[in-house]
Structure formats: C-alpha cells, structure tokens
C-alpha cells in the first residue's frame, strides 16, 4: 500500500521528528510512504479564525497535491478533522453563497481517504501491536479534535497499551481541553494559560514521565506550560512512541 504523508505545516517546520517517526513506523509496517513536496497547510488556522475565504485556496491546494493518493495519513487530529469535517462544510457554504458546486467537487476526493495516524493503524492496517518498545511511564491526553471531531475513541490508548515496556497512567480530566485552540491561545491568553496550567497539574498528578498526545499543536502548548512550571515532564507525540523499538529506542 502506498500512502501520502500529510505532515501539517506545524510538524514540518517545528516537529520534524514526528514526521520521521511516522515514516519509520509505517515503513516498518510495510507501507510505502510518499511525502508530496508541494504540500503546505490545510488552512485550519485561517478557517477557525474566521478567514474562510483565505482558507479556500489552501484547501484547493491540498486537494491538488493529495487527490491522487490511495490514502492520506496525518499525525494530527485537528488537521485530520479539518479535512474530514470542515472541507465538506466549506463546499456547502460555497454552494449556499451561490458559487456552485466547484469547490465541493474539488475537495470531495480527499475527504474520505484522509486518516489520522492512529485511525489508519487500527482501522486500515488493522494493527494495535506495532512492535514498539518504550520503557517509560506515560499518560495520554486525547486532544479535542481527535476525541470529538474525529471520534478516535480508545484507538490511541489501545495502541499505547500494546507497547512493550510502557506503563500507561490514567489522566484525570483527560477529555478537558488543554486550552490551546489555535489563535485562542493568543486572543484569550489568560484563560488559555489557566486551562493549560490545570491540564499540566493533572498530568503531573499521575507521576508519569511523559505526556503523550496525537497532536503537536496541543503538545506545544502543554509542553511550553510544563517547562514554564518546571514539572520535569516531557510532551511526546504518539508517533514517536510507536516508532520507538528496542533496537532504536526513542528518548
């Protein structure tokens, strides 16, 4: 199977290790991975801040770049939800504005074949045991768009539970938002910081070494709060845990 990796602009620029981990993991599982170099950004930040018209060309670009692949895999619940949930809505809105079906038709092909990484592993490849080894205590934060947008359910936790050496600790208030929310973190920074601090305190109470999530944007916010509060915990993307093996352990 040959899939396209949609890494997201945040991962590409700030978290290349996550991308490398996805490539390593999928390759190990026998999947042929391609990274279309023309990819940029799904347009989520634009869309969610109210710049739908600015987001449309980015969505079109996404469809141009990824339209031909069998499957598109992304290690980001929120960018995955953008494509799957909001691209159809963008098409509907364009139609409601009397701009015809063109946008909807352009975006339609990528919608059903875009998968968040854990979804792809569990639903498409049908694996929960991916041969990973990670000898650390981990607590898992299900990010909002993964949890409620894509409905990832317990897939990430099942994958983590199958990792050798990993001890999973329950996170109190797991389904509460960490307070990132894209531009929300800037526009309502007081509330956002308070939410982040509560999330970090809950994580700390588990005594785990690592807080794991399937989205680097939330991890950036949580991690930035962790170092500021000097907790000693580390934020780690789930792809990096699943890619880690006894021969080549991740940090």
């Amino acid at each position, binding site marked *: 199977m040959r899939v396209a990796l949609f*890494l997201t602009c945040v*991962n*590409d*620029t700030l*978290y*290349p290790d996550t*991308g*490398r981990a996805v*490539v*390593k993991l999928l*390759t190990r599982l026998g999947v042929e*991975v*391609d*990274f279309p*170099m023309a990819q*940029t*950004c799904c*347009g989520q*930040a*634009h*869309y*969610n*801040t*109210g*710049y*739908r018209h*600015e*987001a449309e*060309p*980015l969505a079109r*670009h996404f469809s141009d770049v990824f339209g031909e692949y069998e499957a598109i895999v992304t290690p980001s619940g929120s960018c995955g939800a953008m494509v799957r949930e909001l691209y159809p*809505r963008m098409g509907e809105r364009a139609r*409601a504005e009397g701009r015809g079906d063109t946008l909807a038709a352009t975006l339609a092909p990528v919608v059903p074949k875009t998968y968040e990484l854990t979804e792809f592993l569990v639903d498409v490849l049908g694996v929960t045991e991916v041969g990973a080894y990670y000898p650390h205590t981990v607590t898992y934060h299900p990010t*909002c*768009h993964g949890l*409620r947008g894509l409905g990832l359910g317990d897939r990430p936790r099942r994958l983590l539970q199958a990792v050798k050496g990993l001890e999973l600790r329950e996170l109190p208030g797991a*389904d*509460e*938002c960490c*307070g*990132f*929310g894209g*531009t*929300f*973190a*800037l*526009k*309502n*920074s*007081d*509330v956002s*910081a*308070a*939410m*982040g*601090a509560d999330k970090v305190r809950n994580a700390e109470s588990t005594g785990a070494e690592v807080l794991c999530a399937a989205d680097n944007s939330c991890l950036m916010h949580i991690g*930035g*709060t962790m*170092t*500021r509060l000097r907790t000693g915990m580390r934020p780690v993307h789930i792809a990096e845990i699943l890619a880690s093996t006894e021969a080549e352990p991740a940090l």
Partner: protein
Amino acid sequence: MSGTFVGMPAFPKAAQEAVGNPTLRANLRHATHTIRAKRAAAVAEVSDWAALREAGKQIKDHTLRHLDRYLVQLEESVTAAGGTVHWAADADEANRIVTRLVKETGESEVVKVKSMATQEIGLNEALEAEGIRAYETDLAELIVQLGKDRPSHILVPAIHRNRGEIRDIFAAEMSEWGRPAPEGLTDTPAELAEAARLHLREKFLRARVGVSGANFMVAETGTLVVVESEGNGRMCLTLPETLISVVGIEKIVPTWRDLEVFLQTLPRSSTAERMNPYTSTWTGTTDGDGPRTFHLVLLDNGRTDTLADEVGRQALRCIRCSACLNVCPVYERAGGHAYGSVYPGPIGAILSPQLRGTGSEIDASLPYASSLCGACYEVCPVAIDIPEVLVHLRERVVQGGPVTLEGNRTVLKPAKGHAAERAAMRAARWAFARPGALRAGQRLASRTRRLHPRTLPGPGRAWSGSRDLPPVPAEPFRDWWQRTNGGDAGEGRAK
C-alpha cells in the same frame, strides 16, 4: 459590581478578573464539575438519548422554519382561551407594554419568576424608572438582586457566590426589600433557604401582579409551560390577579405532544434530575382559578434577524438547559460575567452577537471566547453545533458579510482592529500557496534558530508570558525528506 452589562470591555479583558480570582475560580470549578458528573449519569440512564436529542432538534427546526404560521396559531389559541397577546419588536417596546399593563392594574409592585427574557430587555430597570418595584422570587435570582449583582449562569445565576457570601448579602440587604433576615443567620443551607422562604412568602401573598417567562409555548392549545425546582414559579403563576408573561418567539412548540421530548431532555441536561420538581402549565384564564387577567408579550428583539441567518439560526433551538456552560472550560475559568449578557457561556457567545449584533467591543469578542473544543456541542440536548456558529460569527467579525438587521438585508463591513491579523493571514495564505516560499521561510528560521528568543515581543507576548516556545529544529522535515528521500542508510529507503 454594576447591575448592568452596558459598556462591557472585550471578553479577554473581562475574563482577566475572574481568572485571577481564586475564590471565584474555586466556586465555579466546584459547581460546574459537580453538576457535570451528575448530568452525565442522568443522561446515561436513558437508552434512547441520541434519538431524543435528534427529535428535539427536529421539532425545533421544524417550528423555526414555520415560525410565522405557529405564531399566528399561538395568538389565536391564547386569545380563544381568554388571554391577550402583545407583540414587541424590541426591548423598548416590550418594556413599554409591560409597564403600561402594570400601571393599568394600579399596582406598584410585581413578583417575578425567573425569566431570562425580562433580564435580556432590562425590564426591572424599566419598571423601576416608572416607580414599580419588581421582586425576583427564584432563590438564586433573589441573591443576585439583593447583592446588586448580575446573573452569571443560566440556571444558577448566583453560581459565583458561596454560602458565606450569601449569608452576608441576606443579613445586610433583606430588610431593604421586605422582611429582614433572622438574627444570627448562619450559612447552613437550611437556614438560608428558610430566611429566603419567609422573605418571599410575604411577597407572594401580597402581590397582585406576577411577571413570568416560559420555557415553552404550545401553539395548538395556547398553553405556556414553566419548569422549575423551587415552587416559587407556581406561586407567581397562580396567586396574583394579573399575570404577564414575556416570552421570546422562539419558545414555541407546535403540539402538546412535543413536550414529551423536552420534559425528558431539559431536566436531565440542566439539573441532572429525571423529572423536574414543578411543571406548571397555564392556558389563558379560568374562572375561579389562578389569575383573572393574562397577557402574553411575544418578544422578538433580534430573533427574526437571527432566524434569517442560515448557519446561526440553530442558536434559536436553545432550551436554556445550561449544560453547555457546565462543561465549558472557558466558562469555568472566565465566569459568567465576562460574557456581558444574561446569556453567558457557549450559548451566550453565539446568541448575544446575533441578538445584539457585533457592533460593540464585547459582542465582537464573544465568538472568540472559545477554544473550539466541542464539549458544548456534545452535551447540547438539541444538538446546536456551537463551534460551527462561533466560526461563522468570527467570519462575520473579520470579513464582514451579509446579515439581516431589523428585517433588512445589508452587508456588514469587517470589524475594526483586525487589520494586522488579516494581513498576517493573507501573508500566510500567500506563502502556503507556494511551497517554495514556505520552504525558504523554514530555512531562514532554521538558520537563525540560535538567535530566536524563547519569549516573544509584541502580540506574541500573550503566548510567551505563560509558556515557553519550542526551539526551531536545525532542519525542517521536508529538507530531511529531500536529502534522504524518507530514510537514512540505517533505516533503508521508504520507497
């Protein structure tokens, strides 16, 4: 604290006070988390919850689609049952009508049962200006009124107060308004409730005019419905000689039968009860029973404008259960006052900017008072996609667009103060449409990475005031990919 919401600052500023107030944070956290857990349990008991939720949504959508027809039917039924219907296009008109009706009775006091619609229009203040005193009879409303405070929650307007604060308010203020609080009042719930009961009983027995809201209005029979927990509503609805109900036009359901859905979903969503303690229904007037005169004031006040908006109209499905407030992480930290309206929390963030327009600072900031986490949509018993409406209203704020104002279609200009953001969004879109430009930017960031501060100047300070930025990596992913084509010698090629 002032009693009105006029001239409120934007949400981020209004929220600052609450975020930094540990007592308030603790009160809110305790209250919302307790009710949140109870609601979840009450909802889990119902096997067909999803179907009920869908049915509630369908009934409301159908009613809204044919609102003109159902309003006429309602007017006919109410009139046939001996009531009088008044139409109020906005707050001023509604206040004028109610003031006139009260004056016609010759009374200068009214008792009120919790009505958000009357708070929305500022009825108490309007009556006061005409020399008429309105007494709130809901316990939490009473606390708010005595404390010269503002409501901060739909269901529990005094949620931001703890017992000690309530005791102090009762002891200091009750005598101003009627029967004073008993000597040596403590902060035990039973004593506080008893003090309120004695204080209120006096009012119920004396008042000849009652003012109420309603949770539902049944078009086919002209029946109004109030659901409540304390029984004060029933007193207000049955004891006075004249009853004036002020109700938003979106509260209609077509048939009596439709109530079966909402009388299941509303109590479980709001108080986590299987059934609410008091359900009162009244239909016009009846000889020898209840009020002799009944007036229904149907309030528009921005509702038909909201109805004209395809995406935003779903806010009118709201049955004011307050479940969305109780699960909202932003409400939990910012408190209800920061929303600058009687409708706080997620529903307030989408309702107020639609009912009042996005012209004021606070209304333009409300669509951003959310991290779009989606918890509100998940709990809403009528499936209002609050995040969808928030994003839609953000678009209205930053890009402008067509809206209906007082019945006229106009095109709104983008709100002021977003120029820098708009420029940044355009620039980002430009770069993202050109992979080469994006790459050049990434490379520049990588090359200068040792120079990057971990805190930011300018607008970025909001971020780095409480969080550290991640370091920029030496090599963006796409450069690594190109260099290795997806793998190094050790890992083997991906292709």
